[in-house]
């Protein structure tokens, strides 16, 4: 695999961001709204990819990080009456703290045990949401009031419920997460993470502290996922326990596998693909999950490394 020059790599990613910006002006209303949602959830997948794709740690509990951001931001507004920026910061802070704690505990295990431990922690998080229903709204969830979802810059008021503002906010979050991811994977730190994925013992022998590198990767991954969750609460106005359920731990795994693990743009491609397959097929049959299943099998057969992963393997070796 050859490495792309900075101009080529950043050019591609800035091009994708520009394309998404341009799409805002031409997409029909429905797809405009859907793409805003997809970009926010693609950030969730990017956070997942950071740990799964680049460090090789398969977590089945990332819904708790998404949920930490979702509830951190949502409850800060609903229960404490905080402003949008403060609520977003609260969501991020919840993600940082939770991922640091989970990382410290779960990284004592590896492989299948890591999967199980992360899944168990996520289940505890989910049940805590139900247990503290008086605060969280339990399984029914709560609405983040529409009047509170505004950003104020001096005399300028940005209404996050406005479709254009929402799309641009989602794009801004997506762009920041994408460029941070790209910068990380191209950095020395990113190479150490890949080295840990390929051979942890050898990386240790070379003098790297693999535990602290893995821990920081868990925190970065969890924080990106929390940013996605916080943005979801603020942009779409709902916090509910279903977003912290095991289904939402498996979804980012599927999105990343589909798009291509350890590719920076794979999470977006995977999320986009899955969303559109479900959206289109559910219009024809209630057995749409069967079609999704068949599509997944076909992808595994013909694109075993995911869409972008296989493209990189066969044609564009420089793709980051």
């Amino acid at each position: 695999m050859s490495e792309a020059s900075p101009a080529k790599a950043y050019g591609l990613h800035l091009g994708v961001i520009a394309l998404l910006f341009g799409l805002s002006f031409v997409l029909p209303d429905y797809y405009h709204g859907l793409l805003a949602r997809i970009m926010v959830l693609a950030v969730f997948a990017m956070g997942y990819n950071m740990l799964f794709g680049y460090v090789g740690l398969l977590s089945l509990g990332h819904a708790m990080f998404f949920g930490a951001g979702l509830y951190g931001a949502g409850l800060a507004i609903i229960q404490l009456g905080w402003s949008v920026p403060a609520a977003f910061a609260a969501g991020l802070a919840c993600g940082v703290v939770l991922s640091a704690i989970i990382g410290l505990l779960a990284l004592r295990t590896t492989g299948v045990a890591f999967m199980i431990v992360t899944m168990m922690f996520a289940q505890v998080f989910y049940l805590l949401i139900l247990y503290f229903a008086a605060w969280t709204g339990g399984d029914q969830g709560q609405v983040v009031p529409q009047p509170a979802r505004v950003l104020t810059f001096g005399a300028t008021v940005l209404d996050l419920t406005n479709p254009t503002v929402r799309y641009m906010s989602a794009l801004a979050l997506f762009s920041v997460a994408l460029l941070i991811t790209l910068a990380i994977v191209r950095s020395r730190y990113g190479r150490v993470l890949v080295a840990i994925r390929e051979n942890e013992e050898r990386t240790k022998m070379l003098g790297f502290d693999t535990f602290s590198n893995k821990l920081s990767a868990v925190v970065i991954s969890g924080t990106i996922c929390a940013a996605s969750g916080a943005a979801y609460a603020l942009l779409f106005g709902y916090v509910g326990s279903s977003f912290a359920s095991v289904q939402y731990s498996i979804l980012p795994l599927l999105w990343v596998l589909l798009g291509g693990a350890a590719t920076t743009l794979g999470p977006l491609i995977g999320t986009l693909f899955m969303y559109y397959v479900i959206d289109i097929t559910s219009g024809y049959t209630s057995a749409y999950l069967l079609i999704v299943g068949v599509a997944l099998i076909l992808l595994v057969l013909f694109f075993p490394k995911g869409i972008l992963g296989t493209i990189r393997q066969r044609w564009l070796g420089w793709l980051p």
Partner: protein
Amino acid sequence: MDKSKTFNLQKTGLTRRTALKGLAAGAGLAMAPGFVRYSQAQSSAPIRIGFQSHRTGIGAAYGRWYEKTTAAAIKAINDAGGINGRPVEVIIEDDGTDPGRGAEVVGKFATQHKTDIVFGTLFSHVVIGSAPAAGEAKMPYFVVSEGHHVASTKLNRYVFQPGITDVKSQIQSMAPWIAANAGKKVTQIFPDFAFGYDHRDYLPPALKAQGADVIAQIAIPPTESSFTKYFPQIPAETEVIYHVMVGPAVLTFVKELGEFYGSQRPQLFGFIDSLEAVDINSPGLEFLDGSHFWEGSPRYAQADDSAAQKAYRAAVGIDDNGAAVGDPKDVSTAAHMFGCWETLYVVKKAMEDAGYKGPEDRAKLVEATEALKEFAEGPEHPQGPKTFNGKIHQCFGIQNISKVEGGKLKVVHKTKIEDGLYEAEGDYTTQAL
């Protein structure tokens, strides 16, 4: 020929390029959403109702019957001339009984299908998850959920529940009968999530007002599959067990409760939600014989059914046992699905009052719905009469208490509307449209 009345390409200087530009602009205009809305509003095109259906996921059994009831109501409305002289068309989207997908579906109705309203959601978490999308799109959203979320005034001005009484009112109206007929010392067994919490929170004060008490509350985790270990927590002096277990575990719950008590049991009172779409004669449910249930609308045909109730049952296609005509095993969700029928007639009435022509009249539709006060019992409201509180967007109706007797549910008491009234917790009409 007078050339001044003809269109001269050369004279106007119209080139092929400008003609193509004009054509493209015209086509663009014709495809623009605003143009479509305008042309629909001016014609006798159908009124389009977006039906957010639980076709898959945990609500699928309800969703199927909600669709059947909706189809029957739409046929009846169209046969009688539609709404404002326009036929009514239903577009169905599956929300997977998932709040995230639910919000997307509401967005799809608003921006892709361009429906006039969205209707039909049952599960509370889907309603709450979808409500922000409806409010932001200024899309009237008529739910048939029975949750207290609409009446709590924590959603928004575009969300209504005019066809089924909310659970807080249902619980409150059960209390006088329980205290007077079943017993004064009540133990509650409920699932440890929101549906159970409504019962946990609203029953004790309602019973207290009737001189009865909840002496124990036993919350059972939603993941539980065996219940025997919880039964020793039931106080010995319990006169009534009030149970609202839902989901597939209900059969095990009843069977194990039967094994625990044998023939000497306290009175049992439950909400039929546990057994909607489940045959009351299923093996293991024998223990329920002689017990009582809340029913919104009776599953079994009753001796004193009104002509409207009979016509409604025939139109929807349920037999005297509440199962699909021709398929006795396909038991309906009769206690709730009448809400779809009645809600659609409320929509009809409100659209007629508002002189509704198209999406530009959605605000008028909201105000016309808020202005409604009561619905008389009859073909449009076969479950019974109702009042409507426009400030909290919630209707209040009579409730049925039925006894399991000889493998059927027989209505033994009908509550009054006043039994379920409570003080409004807010006022949606103060919110901007």
